[in-house]
């Protein structure tokens, strides 16, 4: 199984009709529509190695879904190139389809009126999976996702969590080396989320599947992704490990201290700013581009002041991402 993803200069431009305001405008648009071009994805390049899980991050409307659609072969890029497991998806859609599995958020591919197991059987036929192999994989998925408790229920009667678990299983039943998941855990409770994460980790580590995942859930990113790609306004902003992102955008630590002498004059060490001073309680933060790391700052504060209590607040990933999104928006 060699499921690598290569993306080079991928670009997608959409042409949309501008709607003029008001009823008269709507009538005029009916007769003479005005069109504008919009870059949904612009010159995006990255690679995903076989057996790697990559999180594709970015604010809403950043171009994540468009990228995934191009990699699954549903959308043809305006420019650039993509290869998924050696196949150009939009040129050989059907060949690519055998190599990939995909789940698009809450959109289900299961047959609404049939029990879940019947949907699995139809997909088995469509993907031409041998019966024994299908049964074995279903058993494996059942152990991880607890499908058998509801797989004789019709899809219309499933809860969201049950349906998404079924959809995940349905997308992976033909053993695809590459898996695309567009916000798979959206709207699910913590227990199911954890179950899904466990399943994905298992599929990456044990089965060596390559997974490209988009999500807004930072806990998920921390638990699953080794690497992230950040895009905004269709452009690639960053491609690196979580650690790199933290270093770049996560310099928003705070050191809180209680001073022994509440009347002491507080002059912060270099590169550190005094954010708040309320009696004996002081809060420091980074100052300027050459600010020390949170650990250096902690040391510097203890060395300079006599403190009775000290603590640090490191920005969690959500804060880091917020900073990254905001900065990326400012840059664009």
């Amino acid at each position, binding site marked *: 199984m060699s499921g690598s993803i290569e993306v080079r200069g991928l670009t997608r431009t*959409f042409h949309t009709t501008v709607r003029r305001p008001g009823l008269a405008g709507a009538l005029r648009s009916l007769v003479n529509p005005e069109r504008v071009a919009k870059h949904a994805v612009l010159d995006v390049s990255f690679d995903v190695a076989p057996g790697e899980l990559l999180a594709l991050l970015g604010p809403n409307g950043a171009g994540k*879904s*468009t990228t995934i*659609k191009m990699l*699954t*072969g*549903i*959308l*043809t890029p305006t420019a650039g190139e993509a290869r998924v497991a050696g196949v150009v998806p*939009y040129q050989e*859609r*059907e*060949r690519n*389809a*055998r190599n*990939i599995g*995909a789940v*698009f958020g809450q*959109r*289900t*591919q299961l*047959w*609404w*009126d*049939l*029990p879940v197991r*019947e949907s699995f*059987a*139809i*997909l088995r*036929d*469509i*993907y*031409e999976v041998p019966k024994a192999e299908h049964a074995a994989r279903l058993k494996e998925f059942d152990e991880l996702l607890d499908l058998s408790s509801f797989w004789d229920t*019709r899809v219309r009667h499933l809860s969201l969590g049950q349906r998404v678990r079924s959809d995940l299983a349905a997308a992976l039943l033909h053993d695809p080396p590459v898996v695309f998941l567009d916000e798979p855990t959206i709207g699910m409770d913590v227990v199911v989320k954890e179950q899904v994460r466990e399943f994905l980790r298992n599929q990456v580590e044990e089965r060596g599947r390559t997974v490209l995942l988009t999500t807004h859930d930072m806990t998920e990113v921390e638990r699953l992704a080794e690497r992230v790609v950040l895009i905004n306004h269709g452009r690639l902003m960053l491609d690196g490990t979580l650690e790199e992102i933290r270093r770049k955008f996560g310099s928003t630590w705070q050191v809180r201290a209680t001073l022994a002498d509440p009347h002491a004059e507080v002059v912060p060490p270099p590169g550190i700013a005094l954010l708040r001073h309320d009696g004996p309680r002081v809060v420091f933060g980074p100052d300027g581009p050459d600010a020390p790391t949170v650990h250096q700052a902690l040391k510097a504060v203890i060395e300079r002041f006599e403190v009775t209590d000290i603590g640090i607040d490191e920005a969690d990933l959500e804060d880091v991402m917020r900073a990254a999104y905001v900065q990326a928006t400012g840059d664009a």
Partner: protein
Amino acid sequence: MAMVHAWRAARVTPLGELHAPPRMTAVLLRLSVQVVLVWSLWRGLYAQTGTTAGLDRDQAVTYAVLAVLASRLRELDQYTGRDTVLQHMHFGTIVYWYLRPLPPQRYYALRALGEQLYGLAWALGGYAVCLAVGAVEPPRSAAVAGVFLLSMLLGQWVLYYVMLVLDQLCFFTLRNNAAMLILLFAQNLLAGVYAPLWFFPDWFITMSAFLPFQATLSVPLSLYVGRIPLSDAALQIAVQAAWVVALALFTRWVWRRAAQRVISQGG
């Protein structure tokens, strides 16, 4: 070939119905009531008239009852299954049709085949009962029966393409259930489901001759009741076959355009 492997897709409709017994009861009730109503209506209409538009009472009643039965062939509640093109476009799930190694047009054909076979079971059951109680006349000869079967098969084939064109429209423009309903009504009217086309004015019949709709139902049923004599059957069947070929080519072309549409907009 994926077509053979994916035969299970043809089971979706019958299986969905079997899993919902109330729906089957509803179909049975609706079919029975509709047959009784149509049967009494046409007998009532003919109460003061002998032969009109070349149809006597028994021919007209047979035609009307058979039309009700035949319309069962593909008039299920497709929307509850959420597997219509209209709904897939609405819910954004059309992408999955293009994410599978089975081409959408083959999947669609398999689904329709299963649905039509399932409907056929109902129609045949209904026909047997109607024949037994004398609500319809039997075919006048073995030759008529044979020609009718061939013509009905071609008619269903044409109907498949007509319904397909309506569904294909949803890829491009239709987002509206009401429009779909009106189109279905128009297709039924022009096919002669509500009333035999023979009753309509000449210009209407001439116009119909250039449209594919009468090939779906009016032609086979007219052959059955003898309104089209056996001597004309060959011509009519040839026209039906021509429609099958023309619509097959047309819908193939539209499928390609639909795929382009999905692929250029991402579903």
